[in-house]
């Protein structure tokens, strides 16, 4: 459900308020906007020749983060910070949704959250988001960067190259990390 990033900030503000007031619908409409912005930023990052780490988030994203991360001033110092936060946020939101949706069904079957489909996130089919969530927590213990990579890859949908650029780390390294993370997750979640 990607929409062009032409939402006015008032619309977004409205959506955020609605969401906080408990309207699940509002999140449906908000997330794609956020997501689209994130992807756009990542694309711009990739297109840059210089590796300037700082990137001004759009007003939209700033708004969203400020509110979603619970009031107060949030200083986004770097794009890394922004994206890491975003990755974590998306992960929590999506996992929560899956949990809710699952709770309603008989037997607590988790279903692929429709938002995952709508945002075309590259999470493999039949992935149990709850297990994935726990697994990422464990992966984080091995190395926090691994967890961030997985979040950015699965929950923000960024490419390895984009992730590398964001983290300002050599692409080959990220590639290896991603390979390891996937292998580890694959093995860990098979049980």
């Amino acid at each position: 459900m990607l929409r062009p990033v032409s939402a006015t900030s008032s619309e977004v503000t409205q959506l955020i308020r609605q969401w906080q007031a408990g309207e699940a619908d509002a999140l449906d409409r908000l997330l794609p906007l956020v997501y689209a912005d994130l992807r756009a930023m990542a694309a711009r990052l990739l297109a840059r020749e210089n590796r300037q780490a700082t990137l001004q988030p759009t007003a939209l994203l700033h708004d969203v983060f400020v509110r979603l991360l619970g009031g107060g001033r949030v200083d986004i110092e770097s794009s890394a910070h922004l994206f890491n936060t975003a990755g974590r946020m998306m992960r929590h939101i999506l996992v929560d949704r899956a949990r809710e949706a699952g709770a309603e069904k008989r037997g607590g079957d988790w279903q692929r959250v429709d938002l995952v489909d709508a945002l075309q996130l590259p999470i493999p089919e039949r992935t149990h988001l709850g297990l994935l969530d726990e697994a990422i927590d464990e992966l984080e213990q091995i190395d926090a960067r691994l967890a961030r990579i997985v979040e950015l890859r699965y929950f923000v949908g960024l490419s390895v190259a984009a992730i590398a650029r964001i983290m300002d780390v050599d692409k080959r390294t990220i590639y290896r990390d991603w390979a390891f993370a996937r292998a580890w997750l694959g093995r860990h979640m098979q049980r």
Partner: protein
Amino acid sequence: MDGETLERWRRAREAFGTLIDLPTDARAARLAAIGSGDARLAADLAALLAQVGELVDETDGAEAAAEPVAQRAGTVIGGRFRLLGLLGIGGMGEVHLAERTDELDRKVALKLVRSDLPIPVARARREQQILARLSHPHIAALVDAGIGDAGQPWFAMEYIDGARITDWCDRRSLDLPARARLFARVCRAVQFAHRNLILHRDIKPSNILVDAEGEPRLLDFGIAKLLDGTDAQQTQTLAFTPAYAAPEQLRGEPATTAGDVYQLGLVLYELAAGVPARRAHEVARARADDDTPLPRVDQAFGALTVQAPDGADRIARERGLGVERLRRSLRGDLGRIVAKATAADPRERYDTAQALAEDLERWADGRPVAAHRGTFAYRLRKLVRRHRVATAIIALLALGLVASTLFAVHRAAEEREQRRQAEAAGRRADQQRQRAEILLGFMNDMFRQADPQNADGVEPTATQMLERAATALEARTDLDAVTHAALLTQVADTFNSLFLPGRAADSAQRAVNLLEPERERRSGEYLMSVGILLDALQMLDRSDAQLALVEHALPIAARTEEPAIWSSLLLKFRGAARCSRGDFPGCAADLREALQRIEGAPGARPAGVASTLHQLAVLLNDEGYPAEAVRLLRQALDALDRDPAALRADRETMRVNLANSLAAQGRADEAITLIEKGLAEPLGLYGSDAPFVEAMLRRSLARAKVLRGEYAQARELLAAPSGAMPADHPGLPRHFSHSHLVAARIALDLADPAAALAEVEDARRQVATESDAGATLLQLRVEIVHADALLRSGRCDLALPRWQAARERLDASIGATPSWIGAEISDGLGRCALAAGDTARAESAFTAAIAGFASATGEASPWTVRSRIHRLWAQAMASHDAALLDRLDEARGALAEALGGSARAQVWQTDLLIETLSSELRVPLDRSRAERADQARAAFTALTGRPVAFRDGLTGFN
């Protein structure tokens, strides 16, 4: 995780990183080395490696691959091939240039497959044999193959000295059609392999080379298949390049020809837009309502023009175009071909690689492509996004198969109710949403089963599909009554719009039964089902059932949110039922009441108003008030124009009726224009009714042509074969009856009363089988024509009682209001009176006729003028006043004007009348009158082949 485990995994991570970069053999060795020092670590690593078959990331392509291994040159493989040098590394392994040890000049490309899974030797050999048999000019031949020492297969293929297809096209700046044709050859090669049951599964630009002769050559056929595990359940996909994999492949589903087609589509994508599909995502975000994960080629290229204008420029030049031209070309059919090949759902792609080839060739030739059609499922799925019943309904309306104006009316109420429920309890809202999803999913499945390649129009597929849906519905036990009823109603409505009222009635009746117990709580849904059932019953002419149902449902209308609209609808159907039973006053009263209620009601859709107007107009026309019918129909058509949800079929039916009414007023030219327009439209939207509608249109046209004196054309139209009309079509007898009447009129015009009598007999016979009283009006017309024919045969003695009986029946049916039929009867009685010499009686009869015709068809209509001529004739016979001849001249002019020309039977008859009267009145024949009379005689002789004299008045018009 405890500290020890953590440490273990950290070490594993380090080692893993280095292992990943090594080629297979070295990796195995390294692993072994590790194992000798730390068995646990080695085990962990092995477990990890087992997870990872292909390490090329989706978006990074070959960049992340391992370093090339240079030390292989000189090795002999399989005892007969010597490696000469590395050509490249792909997802599957290394490709070396090699030569045969026994023939130094024969070069091959030798592929050493790297795989983490051991392949059963027997299977490998079997596959190799299959591949060896694949002999095609565009497929690189397999020269030899074997199993290496470590159990890994190797393949020696024809060495193709060529460039990648993408590079080759770019270097020659091949334009798009040339690329399409070249690629079509590639597709046909793939088709050949498919026919031999071999899948490629790793189609990508680097596997398609173009040799020095410009022939494309496909590499690596079937190798991917060989290397895949035997296990279809394995979710990890193996030996192919994920960047070029089809979505279902990535999900681990077994590969199919559709997967190959997808991959072909991706290569085509790159050939067309210059942007590899995998990069397309980064270049252009997918649009909100696009169902494919892949942006359209024109979008991808368009985004590139913004982000990297130089690159875009170059790409365009490599296709011999400017940037804008290229983008436009990509937006057209070529873009659609790509989209169809790369559809996310394999069922929506081209069935075969050959189909893709053919479409490409068609495109290159400038012919229409197949990729255009079959977008039901696409469009419907897009609408799944928003979970509201209203959206589901919009989806159906958009597809144009759901008729109901009723539905349109109901939606407002439904929406309001929806909102209320949503506010009341979230749980209810969820139910509604679920229902919408079920509904939409249901329709989705229905449409998905339809053959998207169907080029013959919507109808056959829709019918089959609906029937399947109806059957499927019966089997469902999981639905609550309301949802079940909603689905049944949808199906019924669609059947109605396809003119299959029998099936519609079945489904609708079941829906009504389901909702019966809850009809007061769920009044809106109940009445909607009732409305659809009534629609079907009307088409089936089951007026008893209609009346009963309306009586039962009327009280419920009061319980709804819009009682005026619902009661209006029910009254409309009751009126129609009454008409069927011959209760015309009751019918008219109900219809007028319905009209009044709906015109005042807020929220009434114009289509609902139009439908009521239409119903009333039809009645009025039948009764013989075409002028008013015309007025109402024009209003109705205007209303329909204002309603975007209006079904075209309704509009067309109204137009036909308007044409008939215009013809009944004598406005032949206008009628003809309308009808010809109607005939020019594709009649597919009438579904199975199309042959019937066409026949009716022809008959109307014939009638109008008769008015213009175009007898030959009229006869042709009447004689046209009835096509594929089912013999039991309910409207057939009346249609035939009308047709015979038109033929009878032609015969009378051409002074052949005997033939007319025969036609009348046929007309009567057709309508005598009609049991319902609604045929009354038609039977009356038959009687009138019959009487006219008798009069012209000189049998007033037989004609008179007929007319009198007809008059009595008419009074009983529609009352004494002056009408066309009544006027026609009067005119006939007048002529008989005149033939008997009773000029006084004749004059008063004609006066009544004039009044009737004037009110029903207009002052200047042919009928009115004709009766005036008759009256003048009667007056002349009575008074012998020569001045009346002049008035007759005037009237003759008025008649010619009314008929749109003087080359008309009635005008000639008038000329002959004037001549006869002249001599009767002993007035010397004026020159011009004599000329006209001569011409009239000549014209008749030409038309009929025999001399004709004036007698017994002007023939009527139908």
